[in-house]
């Protein structure tokens, strides 16, 4: 088991490393320069001073050199300071990461609470009108863009009914973004659950259980549900990564103060230290989540940790 975890962690570190290298290269491919953008559209400074600022930020160095400096600082636990406002990147990220995690976990909860029972129900009533209705709803759920769903919910619950606040960061403010992000993921979870359960239901051991004369409820609970959950747990890891990505759009609509919005602003301003810091933290969260899920998976299914 420890060997298994060790391997997963090593792979995770490699993933994070490759991600940061890729991002460093990619952000420099996008035209635009943070210092130039900072002064764009107004006067404020002289070309000489712009060069001085670029030098002080290390932007005059080659891209590999900038990356090495970034990693060097990173090993000391320093993610650098933002180009705009010169504030510590790590502080800004950690101030806002809790909000994004809160959003992603709440959305996961919404997706699980809605998706699992509905998917199970559809599998159980396979081929009926109910199944068709639920799966049509699920396809609709997957197809609706977050942006549109978010605005619909905003106008329904915040403007018309006035049950929930419009925008901002607080406990009640979490409801709408979590629903927006959770609903479309609930649709995915429901579809996954249905197909996984149908798969299990047609297996020999389930037929045997039925043949033994076990009550239906016990067959479903003890045999079908347990076996059917394994692939769903794995998928939850991928879902979580998607959820963190989806959070960027949703955070923007509802002014939820998470790292996603921070990243969008940083990208438009080409704030390299901020973008690099964001990707590092983002990749770490996703990798840690998937390692945790792998471990859970391995605990549930002993074949995994041996393979």
């Amino acid at each position, binding site marked *: 088991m420890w060997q298994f975890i060790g391997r997963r962690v090593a792979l995770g570190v490699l993933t994070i490393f490759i991600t940061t290298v890729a991002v460093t290269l990619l952000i420099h491919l*996008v*035209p*635009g*320069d943070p210092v*130039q*953008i*900072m002064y*764009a*559209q*107004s*006067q*404020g*400074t*002289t*070309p000489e*001073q712009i060069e001085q*600022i670029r030098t002080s930020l290390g932007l005059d160095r080659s891209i590999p050199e900038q990356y090495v400096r970034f990693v060097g600082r990173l090993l000391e*636990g320093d993610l650098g300071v933002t180009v*705009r*406002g*010169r*504030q510590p990147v*790590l502080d*800004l990220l*950690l*101030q*806002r*990461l*809790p909000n994004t*995690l*809160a959003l992603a*976990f*709440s959305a996961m909860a919404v997706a699980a609470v809605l998706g699992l029972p509905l998917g199970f129900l559809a599998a159980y009533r396979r081929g009926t009108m109910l199944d068709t209705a639920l799966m049509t709803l699920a396809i609709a759920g997957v197809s609706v863009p977050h942006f549109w769903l978010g*605005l619909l919910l*905003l*106008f329904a619950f*915040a*403007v018309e009914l*006035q049950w929930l*606040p*419009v*925008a*901002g*960061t*607080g*406990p*009640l*403010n*979490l409801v709408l973004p979590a629903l927006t992000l959770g609903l479309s993921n609930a649709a995915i979870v429901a579809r996954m659950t249905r197909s996984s359960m149908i798969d299990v239901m047609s297996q020999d051991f389930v037929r045997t259980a039925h043949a033994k004369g076990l009550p239906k409820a016990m067959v479903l609970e003890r045999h079908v549900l347990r076996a059917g959950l394994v692939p769903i747990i794995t998928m939850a890891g991928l879902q979580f990564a998607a959820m963190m990505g989806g959070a960027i759009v949703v955070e*923007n*609509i*509802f*002014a939820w*103060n998470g790292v996603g*919005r*921070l990243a969008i*602003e940083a990208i*438009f*301003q*080409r704030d390299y230290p901020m973008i690099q810091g964001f990707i590092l933290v983002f990749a770490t969260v996703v990798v840690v989540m998937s390692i945790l899920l792998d471990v859970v998976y391995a605990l549930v299914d002993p074949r995994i940790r041996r393979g």
Partner: protein
Amino acid sequence: MKQSIRKALVSAAATILLGGIAPAASARDIVWARYGDMDTLDPHRATSTLSLQVWSLVYDTLLAVDATGKPVPNVARSWTTSTDGTEYTFKLNEGVVCHDGTPLDANDVKYTVDRAFDTSNPSLTKASWGPVTSVEVIDPLTVTIKLDKPFVALVPFLADSFSSIICDSSKDAPGFGSTAAIGSGPWKFVSWTKGDRIVLTGNTSYRNFGKLAENKGAPYMEGLVITTVPEPQARLAGLKTGAIQIAEPPLDDVPALKQSGDLKIVIAGNTGQNVFWEFAVHRPPFNDPRARRAVAHATDAAAAIDLIYGDLSLPEKCPISRGVFGNDQEFCARHGQSYDPEKARALLAELGYGPDKPLEVTMIAWTGGKRDKLAEVFQSQLAEVGITARIEIMDIGTMNARVRQENEKRDGIGSLDMMTWSWFDPDILYALWHSPGAYRGYTSSELDAMLEKTRVLSDQAEREAAVRDVMAYLLENAIHVPLYTPGWEWVFAVRPEVTGFKVAPFVYPVFNDVRF
């Protein structure tokens, strides 16, 4: 780092269980929602409008501007200039108090300027102060700024929040710029949750000596909360429910809002923003002034603005917009190219283009603010005279890099772009067009000499004449073809019960008179 991550996780749980950290706005607070956040409270470490707007609330400036954009006394009750134009002496008003209770005096002004010129960490906008050599405190209420050579743009600069007076007690304030800011403006800084909100409280000992507000004392409302709400529809939703009192609405909804009367629309005037055509001038066809003039003659800015913005924006004839010293619509109209498609066709024919051989160009514009729609209108206007323009819309960061690339390219099809700049003084033309040029575009030694003159003439009439010379040159050669003003973040929707909200020149909202 591990520890901080654990802390982050714990606080994620706390966010869910206990609720947000940010205090809710009380009924006596104004809530103003903007699309983005400021960069810092330190006036020497940022350049964005979003930052400047906040500084203008927390700090005072020596001078202020009247509704037309002209500098007037504020903290300084009067000023004199030495005959050679290298010494500016300011007499300060008595009774201005910093937020920590200490009186604001000449030492605070000296502290601010010295800090801007700190050799190890100068202000980002150091150059805008001009060639300052020293600041001398004559007595507590008299201060002299000494220059190496004349620099007349100093006066309008001292009326802008770039020159915010930082009280010298800020020196000892830990976290100055992010968790502390000591000024003497109408609003005191309370807290800043980056990305979410800035909380300010009314400065009860505030005295208004020159800011564009009728209220001569403290603001009427208790507090001012500036929140960040990036999505325009969410801002509109907040305005409708009353969670927000003032915000920029989605531009497409403005006509309907005006008609329904649910919200008041306030338009910022004299913003100094200038939207204009400029061209890649180092290759054909736009290295030839006739091709540039043809575009100018083919452009009917008034019709396009009317179609896209209605009465929210105005056509602008000058390279420096309304509110800026030297702006004169009639003068600029005389020197610029009026809308005349026939002349455009004739010029194109001279260059060998015609119905059988259209001129193909790229038209670059900045995303947002309905500028994509506006570009389409201009595209059809250019098509009328036989110019086929391919529109490319991009974010402002990309656009700035791209325009420079276009100027550095020596071949390829012609390129023109709808550029947008803003400044409170004609010195903006120096930044744009003095060698090497902001985007390495048009420059000439003749123009350089004319621009240099606008910087040193301290006599107002002489300087105005010099600015006019520059404008005439830019217009006649169709280097900078003005289109309209204002151009971005200039429309405010206000709840019907809110009175007294106004926007001072250069997009500085003023809340001193606000009541509801």
